[in-house]
Each structure stands twice: as C-alpha cells, then as structure tokens.
C-alpha cells in the first residue's frame, strides 16, 4: 500500500517536472533586445480662468409698475422697503488665459419657478455698465426685447440667451442688466413677481 502511494507520488512529481521543463523549453527566445528610453516627452496644458462676478444684488421685480422702454432704459438702482433691488444688476465676465485661444461664452437668464409674471411682459436691456452706459449688441434697437422673445440658450434649453461673445485673449467685460415690466402689461389684482438668475457658460 505504502509502496503504491510512494510510487504514485514520485510519478506525479516527475510529471510536474516534465511539464515545467516542457513549458520552460517552449518559452525561450533566440534573440532578445530591450532598451528603456531616457528622453521625457511632455505636454503641459494651458489654463483658463473664467470668472463671472456679480457685483450687485440680483433684480427682483416685485410690485413694479409697467413702464415705457425709454423709462426702463434709464432705471437707477434702488432698494425697496423689503431690501430687494430695483433697477439694474451689474456683473462682470472675465477670462485669464495662459495662451490666447478663442473662448466663446454666453450670458443667459433662467427664470425661477416662483415667478408669476408672464415673461412676455418682461423687458430685458443690457448695457456695458460704463459711464456712458451704452447698450451692447442686440439691445441697440428702438424696441427693447422681452424675455420670451430672446433665443434659447445653447448651454441650457430652459434658459434664454441674453448675450454671447468670443474672447480671443485674457479680458474683462462688464455688464449692466435692467429688467422692467412692459407698458402693455395689465396689472393683476394680486401682487406678481418675476425672478430671474443670470448665468454665464462657455460654449463650443
């Protein structure tokens, strides 16, 4: 019994050794060459810092009265009794690039859900916020556009594009946004409101 077991063990060991020998015999190579390179090949990415800075409180049209475009265009900022800002809203968009490349961005508005005034009565007017407060492209016409007529934002289908531009180098742009209720709006018996957020996003 012992001999039989011993024989089997020996045979098993021999078979394993044979298998190892066969395997190692099959894995040889006639010629081998190996060289590790020394030269580093490096790409360092550039950087862009894109900043949207709100320099004043947002606009909240509450209990505002309809007005003409001429009156709306010259609205001054005031804070009402509730602390809400009426008038205009200032913000900046800037890009700081390590390399001059074109960056396209859009400023778009998104209406908060608690708004109750139909956007077709909300006038939107954008200027450069300078001393002369010049209207920027898209707002230079005789009729100030209403929010609902603005094109759909590229970066957010639920938003409305207020403005788009391409930076080709590091730059800073200031904006002043005015919102007012169009003169053809019929006042409701109850208080209505319109709350819009301003967003900035880069687009391809």
């Amino acid at each position: 019994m012992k001999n039989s077991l011993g024989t089997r063990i020996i045979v098993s060991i021999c078979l394993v050794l044979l298998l190892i020998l066969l395997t190692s015999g099959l894995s040889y190579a006639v010629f081998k060459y190996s060289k590790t390179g020394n030269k580093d090949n490096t790409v360092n990415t550039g950087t862009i810092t894109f900043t949207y800075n709100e320099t004043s409180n947002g606009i909240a049209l509450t209990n505002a009265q309809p007005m003409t475009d001429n009156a709306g265009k010259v609205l001054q900022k005031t804070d009402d009794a509730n602390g809400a800002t009426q008038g205009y809203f200032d913000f900046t968009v800037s890009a700081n690039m390590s390399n001059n490349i074109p960056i396209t961005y859009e400023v778009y508005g998104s209406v908060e859900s608690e708004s109750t005034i139909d956007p077709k009565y909300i006038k939107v007017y954008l200027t450069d916020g300078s001393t002369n407060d010049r209207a920027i492209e898209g707002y230079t016409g005789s009729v100030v556009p209403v929010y609902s007529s603005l094109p759909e934002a590229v970066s957010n289908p639920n938003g409305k594009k207020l403005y788009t531009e391409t930076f080709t180098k590091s730059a800073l742009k200031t904006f002043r946004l005015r919102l007012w209720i169009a003169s053809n709006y019929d006042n409701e018996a109850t208080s209505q409101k319109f709350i819009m957020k301003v967003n900035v996003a880069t687009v391809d």
Partner: protein
Amino acid sequence: MADNNSMKKETRHLRPLMMMLVAIVFLVVLMCSLSLAIIAYDQEGSMVNTIKTTDSITIMYTEGRSGINITNALPTKDSIGKELSGEGATFSFTVSAKLKSSNVRYEVTAIKDSSSTLEDDDVRLYLEKSVDNEIYLPVFGPSSFTPLKEQSSLGSPKGSMIIETGTFDKTQTNNYILRMWLKDNYNVDKDSKTYTVTVNVYAASNAS
C-alpha cells in the same frame, strides 16, 4: 699455472652469462622490430587513411569531399537539423574493413578543435549510418558535445567524444553522415562564434 687455471675458471663462469645476455638482446630486438612493423601506418594523403597489417586485416576510413561548413548559423530545432542536406551541410564518410578471419572493433570519434569559441552545449551533433548507402538510420544524437573524461580502451583521447562504436566480423563498408547545428535556444548576439570538429576512427582487433 695457478693463475691460468683461475683465469680459465672465471672465463668458464662468464661464458654462459654472456650467451644468455646475447640471446635476450636478440629476442628484444626481434620483438621491437615486429612491434614497429605492426604499429606503423600511412597518414599521407587527405582522402584515405589506411592501415594494412597483415593479409588478414585491412581497415579504411574514407572522408567525403568536404566537411560541414555552415556560416551565419542561427539556432535550429533538432527536427530541422536532422534534415540538413546539401554541400557543406553534412559530412559523409565511410569506415570499412576487409577481413579473412578476424574481428575488428572500432570507434568513430569527434575531436573538438581548440579554436572553437562556442560552448559544447551550444551545438548538436547527429550521426546516421547505412550499410547499403541507401537507407540511413540514426546511430547517435542529436546530442551536445560531451567530452570523454578518460581515454577509451580503443584510444579515443580524453576530451573527444565517441559518436559510434561497432564491430566488423566480415568484410563490410559502413557509410556515415554527420550533421552539426546550433542548438535551438542559443542566444544570438553581436559576436560571431565557431565550433569545429574533425572525425577520427580508432580500431583494434584480436589477431595473431
């Protein structure tokens, strides 16, 4: 008178000794002459090596036209090496005997040239034999060169390798084909190396 007698006595004692000495010298000289006649062999010529002893034994080792000469050799599997053919790829030779009533034992031995730079393990040798010069059968290898540790009884020197042994008991010619190649797991590099062997035959017979 007494002196003459003693001288004569001395001479008589010396004479048998001198005769014995002469006889022994004669027999030694006779023996040496016979030995010299047996050992002498003809080594002239490059094609045929022959020894002729008496009329009862002739043994010949005949080399083919050319030996193996493989250049730019690369590692080769045994299955390929065994089939090598053509000029310079094989070495053919014959060992033959003409016998009347004796047996001759012989060895075919590979002698490695000292100029070889490959290791013994890097080459493979393979010998085939035929008695009719038609059907060849393997008689040695494929095997690496494994040197003898001692001189063999037939005279193959230490450091050589016996690749065939045989016995002639009648007149016969044995044909051989030797092949040699680079072992299949040899690592080729930038240095060219060589391995050279020659083939000798050593034989002995019981003859009176």
